[in-house]
């Protein structure tokens, strides 16, 4: 994970296609790895049942086990990536494995927010653009991509550029690594004014 003060302006490296739709967070980080009070050690749980068989041996049919792919930096995924459980452990595990960006047609909503909060770049692209990227990677000697967070482009091995969009707030979160709690605490006076009015109008909302 980048320190909040470091700027994140580009991500480059090996890109692995894992084109499974609705790849849920139960699969990204199975339950047995959630029994922890820390964020550490989650790389070994990442996509565990896809990466390892019932005896704990690496599965040869998983791209992340192919030679060189332990250095994967960018995951190209199917639609609704990270649907299901809210477990942020899925994002931490991806990052601890070394993945800094995911490219997918769509994301589970809680996962998407979790990714931004941890500065894991979740790029959304049309399926056709993803298909083109996957094809370009398959042709290339080095299956690497270069993502420019300032220009909002992805450079394929053949030099072609694919643009992507990112909400201005999301881009600031990724590039600058904002401390969201500190930012909101600047609005504490407004929060207090709001809640006085709110509780006066609807006192039954104080339930405990």
């Amino acid at each position, binding site marked *: 994970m980048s320190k909040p003060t470091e700027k994140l302006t580009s991500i480059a490296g090996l890109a692995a296609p894992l084109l*499974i*739709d609705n790849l849920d967070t139960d*699969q990204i980080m199975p339950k047995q790895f959630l029994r922890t009070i820390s964020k550490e050690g989650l790389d070994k749980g990442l996509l565990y049942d896809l990466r390892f068989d019932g005896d704990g041996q690496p599965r040869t049919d998983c791209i992340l086990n192919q030679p060189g792919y332990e250095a994967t930096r960018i995951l190209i995924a199917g639609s609704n990536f990270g649907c299901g459980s809210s477990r942020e452990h899925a994002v931490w595990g991806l990052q601890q494995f070394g993945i800094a960006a995911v490219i997918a047609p769509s994301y589970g909503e809680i996962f998407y927010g979790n990714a931004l909060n941890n500065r894991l770049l979740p790029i959304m692209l049309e399926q056709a653009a993803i298909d083109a990227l996957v094809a370009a990677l398959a042709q290339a000697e080095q299956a690497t991509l270069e993502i420019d967070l300032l220009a909002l482009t992805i450079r394929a091995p053949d030099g072609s550029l694919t643009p992507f969009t990112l909400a201005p707030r999301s881009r600031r979160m990724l590039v600058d690594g904002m401390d*969201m709690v500190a930012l909101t605490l600047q*609005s504490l006076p407004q929060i207090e004014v*709001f809640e006085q009015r709110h509780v006066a109008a609807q006192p039954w909302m104080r339930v405990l």
Partner: protein
Amino acid sequence: MTSQPATLYQKLVDAHTVEHLDADHVLLYADLHIMNEYTSPQAFSSLHDKQRAVLRPAQQLAVVSHIIPTAPLAVGQRVIGDPASSLLALNLRRNCERHGIRLFDTNDIDQGIEHIIAPEQGLVRPGMVILCGDSHTTTYGALGALGFGVGTSEVEHILATQTLVYRVAQSMRIRIDGQLARGTSVKDLTLYLISRLGAQGARGYAVEFCGSAITALSVEARMTLCNMAVEAGARAALIAPDSATRAYLRSHAAPFQHGDFPALWDELHSDPDAVFDLEHVFDASEVAPYVTWGTSPDQGMPVNARIPGPDSQSANTDPHAPAMVRKALAYMGLQAGEPIMGLPVDRVFIGSCTNSRIEDLRAAAAIIGTHKVAPKVRAMVVPGSGAVRRQAEAEGLADIFIAAGFEWRQPGCSMCLAMNDDVLSPLERCASTTNRNFEGRQGRASRTHLMSPAMAAAAAITGVISDVRTLEHAQ
């Protein structure tokens, strides 16, 4: 409240907006924040590292729910044997003590699943915003409260500020008229809707359910529907409060036991001219008993249909769909074109935040009657809370389950996500009243078929996936 025609969702967001942050985001105020033992530890740690306080301890609630063992207890207290799980519970207790947060701890008499406890304790009320580090927080829409799941970074943000940086969702209305047929329940309706919408059919939307079929549902049944809206991708689910909602609150929330309801609740509905970004209409009378055949909650089918294949219509227009269907069939050990009825099950699980309330247990017990659990089937009932468990015992439901050969267990999330020791073995097939049939969800290589409590009970006594309508005890 705005003067323009507004949806219920817009009204709830507007009423909780502290600030507009940009065109898409608001700072949303949370009336109540609920935490569990496994998505909150890192939030507390980070808060402590930065020497920040919990802004509103009295608006936090914590529950030990996911890791807790549910084995029947003859006597004494529950002990969490697994050291890592025990640490999660201890850590939550320490954090709650340090900050003065109300905790339903391991041996609290009302301990249970967070989404079962909060409504039954009267803590969920119309018009509230309730956040929790758990995706099934959508449940609270059943009472006209805006609830949705958040991640651990957001848990920290809420602890420190009582607010969330929130991207406002689009609005969807799903109207369901018609009557549910004999032998079907809200779970069948829910699985039907998800199969029609798809696993991301409601992604990006706050969904409001309305129509005569919704009005006819009990509040507990509405919770089942709103709970699983997230399986269609919905950010939130809402049902406008009505007389059933008020009756529920009269019996669950002390301030309302004499029926003095706030006048503001009369405004908690979408205005007649309110515009939704998307609308769907369904007919409840088309719903048959539903079971899932695949590994995504939208891979469901009427129990009397044949298992779909890669070229079936349900594979819709997604070019990846045929491959996904083949993958799901292989994982589940099923053949396209075969009936699903008659498929033997090894296990039956009745429980989870979807289906472990008293009405669910009544529905299951009504099917069981004096029947026995089929030979070779291991069946368990895990009530959603201590209160549900006590009521089921008082009503004689527990006796029916026990006499039939079910394990009558202690409350918790249990085998819904199998984070405790209630886990399926590889290739075991389970009739389950839970919400997710994901690969590995109930254990590595486990095979989950989602269904209603009545259908799960039918599978338990016949030993195979059965049509509850053909059983002797079916109402």
